[in-house]
């Protein structure tokens, strides 16, 4: 996909064209997937990769030279964060379903020494996703900041740049959103 097409789609999306997002999502998704494959191949048992590396690399690859433009960067990261969130949630749902069906259990036991943390983690990710939806219902901006910080792994400064507010504000919002989510999720992790 040529850079210019991605740029055009981002521009259309930012001016309110919902279809553009539908077209952008698979492009970003494919790119993330490609990068992930490479990372996985390279790092072996390393769990430290975070989505940050994925997103930044996808950005460099998809946007290339056009990436230096401020608004492109903004929109791209917003889309990437959404895509990553969607991928992780889909995955968590699939694992959950397989677990209920019993099919995936065996694989976990054989492959994954940390099978129990894995299962717990899946439940947590789903709970977080739902809580984030509830938060978005009354504070879209805060939910978006969480998405950028948490799913795309952006720093305070990067988040500030994407959302277009000061880093200090992001920091305050982040503290609050985190406090709220932590309270919402307490039930999940302790019970």
């Amino acid at each position: 996909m040529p850079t210019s097409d991605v740029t055009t789609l981002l521009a259309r999306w930012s001016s309110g064209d919902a279809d553009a997002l539908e077209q952008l999502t698979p492009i970003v998704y494919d790119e993330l997937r490609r990068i992930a494959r490479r990372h996985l191949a390279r790092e072996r048992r390393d769990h430290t990769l975070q989505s940050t590396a994925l997103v930044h690399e996808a950005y460099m690859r998809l946007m290339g030279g056009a990436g230096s433009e401020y608004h492109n960067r903004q929109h791209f990261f917003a889309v990437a964060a959404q895509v990553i969130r969607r991928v992780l949630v889909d995955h968590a749902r699939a694992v959950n379903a397989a677990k209920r069906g019993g099919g995936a259990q065996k694989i976990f036991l054989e492959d994954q020494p940390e099978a129990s943390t894995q299962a717990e983690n899946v439940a947590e990710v789903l709970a977080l996703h739902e809580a984030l939806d509830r938060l978005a219902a009354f504070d879209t901006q805060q939910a978006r900041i969480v998405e950028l910080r948490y799913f795309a792994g952006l720093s305070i400064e990067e988040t500030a740049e994407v959302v277009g507010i000061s880093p200090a504000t992001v920091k305050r919002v982040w503290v609050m959103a985190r406090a709220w989510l932590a309270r919402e999720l307490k039930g999940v992790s302790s019970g």
Partner: protein
Amino acid sequence: MTAERWAQVKDVFQQALLLEPGKREACLAMHCNGDSDLLAEVRSLLESASEDAEILDTPSHLPSLGPIVHRVKEEWSKGDVLIGRVIGPYRIQSLIGEGGMGSVYLGVREDAEFRMQVAIKVLNRATSGYDIVERFRLERQILARLNHPFIARIFDGGITEDGLLYFVMEYIQGIPLDEYLRRTHPSLVERLQLFRELCSAVSFAHQNLVVHSDIKMGNILIMEDGMPKLLDFGISRVLDAEGKDRGFSDDGQVTALTPAYASPEQLRGEQLNTASDIYSLGVLLYEMVCDRRPYEPDPGNPLAILAKIAAGNPPRPSEISTLPGVHQDLDAVILKAIQPRPENRFITANHLSQDVSRYLNHQPVSACPDTALYHTRKFLRRNRVAVMVGGLAVASLVGGVVASTLLANRAEYERQRAEARFEDVRQLASSMIFELDADLAKLPGATGVRGKLVERALEYLDRLSHESGGDSGLQRELAAAYEKLGDVQGRPNVANIGNTALALECYRKALSIREALSDPKKPELSNKADIAQTYSRLSSLHKLMGDYQMGLQYDRDALRMYQEMLALDPNSLEHRRKVASSYTGLGGGLSQIGDWDGALESRRQALRMFEEIVAAGSEDPEDKRGLCLAHRRLGGILLMLKDAKQAENHYRKALSLSQEMIRENATDARNLNDVAAGAIALGGLLHENGQYLEAMERYRQAIQIHEDLAAADPLDARNRSILASTVYRLARAMIAAGDPVHALPLVRRTLDMREALASENPMNAGAQGEVGESHMLIGDCLGAMRDRAQALASYRRAMAIFRQLQIEGKENAVLEIHRRETLEKIRRLERS
């Protein structure tokens, strides 16, 4: 919660957050203004926030995404995504199989003319890109030569746009060996015959300098007609560029290898060689015979297998196999192949195969580890077959005189007692190696015979070494035999058949035996001398392979060793001679890395010492040869340092010494060589002086000598290499003399000769560089003929080779000068 309500909560929360925790209550009371719900909500959030307010970036109450991201990435990496995509000229059709290292797809090449099915192996790990592609490009020529009925061909390879490494291979319809054995239950004889076919494939690859390093059941397919195909040959070689991934990763996890098949040295991450493949073949044979591997992993303790592999004491096949016909002799063969120490295994896959064949024919096997008594009993019973056939085969090569000696020996055998036979065979082998070989070395044309002779004798010694126990005398002989075999295979600067890989292996074996024999408490002069000699051999071999630093290191080691010996016995002429020769060698090493001053000093030292030796009245022609070489080499350095007058002095002395020698002994090929070398050196000097016609005359003399030698011994790679270089010099002088038109066919001839030499021995970095040098001179020639475009093309070809050697770290001082000059010439032509 509504947005309005949330805005209120947010407002109060953020106001309170700015304050010290102790001062917040008052602020809350003021802002909530009696709204107790609001107050409770903000309090609860502040409480939640205080629990991890310290660390902004790792929210402890939120789940870590690490594990799930990792899982997703794993999902993503599964193969299906490639189906339908195009890699190179191939479209991926379906997934054939998946393994630890990657996935194999069926690909189809659809050109206008033909449709071809291939197997495409995509490794599921990324590479450092450029390096590995470059490496593959280098290997491709070698892999293309692996044209053997039992080896699956590799056609191509590269990197997908996702950065994944892939190989395009011959598509084989067959089933893996283990499955084949389960399905068809072949007899022992059929299994052993199948195994011998695999040995022939491995042996063929080894002769082409390719090590497999991952031989296992799963890498062998059996086709419908029962023929085996060994897969993935040469892939490990390409991957070795990233050597870390072999064996164990940093966290101790087994990665690429299948540990059950991997040799102890492979598991230790050492350099792979043919001995590791022999080991894997042994494991394979064990499994084909016993239906299990020698060492099975312990599920409770995955690392325990490593200790078992290192100990090397598996159950004997004859005790566990359910096949009829498995006896102790087969145990001996299999267990010899999987000895933990490489030097105790079969030397080649052919030797292993031959032993299996002996077992099939109910002959005694060479691997039999039993006592000398047992073995000699076998000799008694079968000596015509087991001992003499080999000896006679060699005898027929060497000629009548030797044959009658052997026949006399044979008559002798039959009269003697069993124990004495052992001694005789040993002596025969030694004499074949040392006496006959020394005589043959002086005959032009004997290189091929010498190779066979020494190899065969080595077989005997190797076989006997099993019965030697702690016999250090035999160990010494064995080391000497390895060294001799190394010499014939590829010792630089003497007649050899250009198999550098085998030579290196032989020298290493010799060195390790000799080092094991040395006792630091009892410095033994003869062993020191042997070790020093092996150092010198290794030095010249490493220099040939382009590893000049390593070569220099061995030069220094050898010099140190000889100096120690001279210190122990200061009156020894022999030690003095060795120290002197070592200075000559060190000078060569230093000049190759461009340390001209060091080289000059070291060569002056060599000359001084040889002059002393000859002045002291030495009659040994070797000393005269040493002095001659010392003069010539010193002259070379002086010429390099632009001291033409001094250089000429030394060159003339060298030439007159060699002419003296040839008057004394005209049949010694080495004397002819020295005369030619002297002529070439003088030619170089005359060229520098601008006396091109005189230089050409000298070169023609040398070419005549080397052409005679080449006609007498077409296998001698060194002679052909000198011949090519001399023709090259002649052509260069012609161009300088203003006759590029007649020079051009000569340079083209050098290019052909050098390309042949380089492809015969891909490890010879110098030969690759010389191909570049010829391209460069063709460029000069065409440039002088005003053919700018073609000249530029030739320079670019030269440049590609020089660059490659530079990238591989195989560039020496001369090649560096060539590279810079070529670059300069390209730039000049591009500007014009």
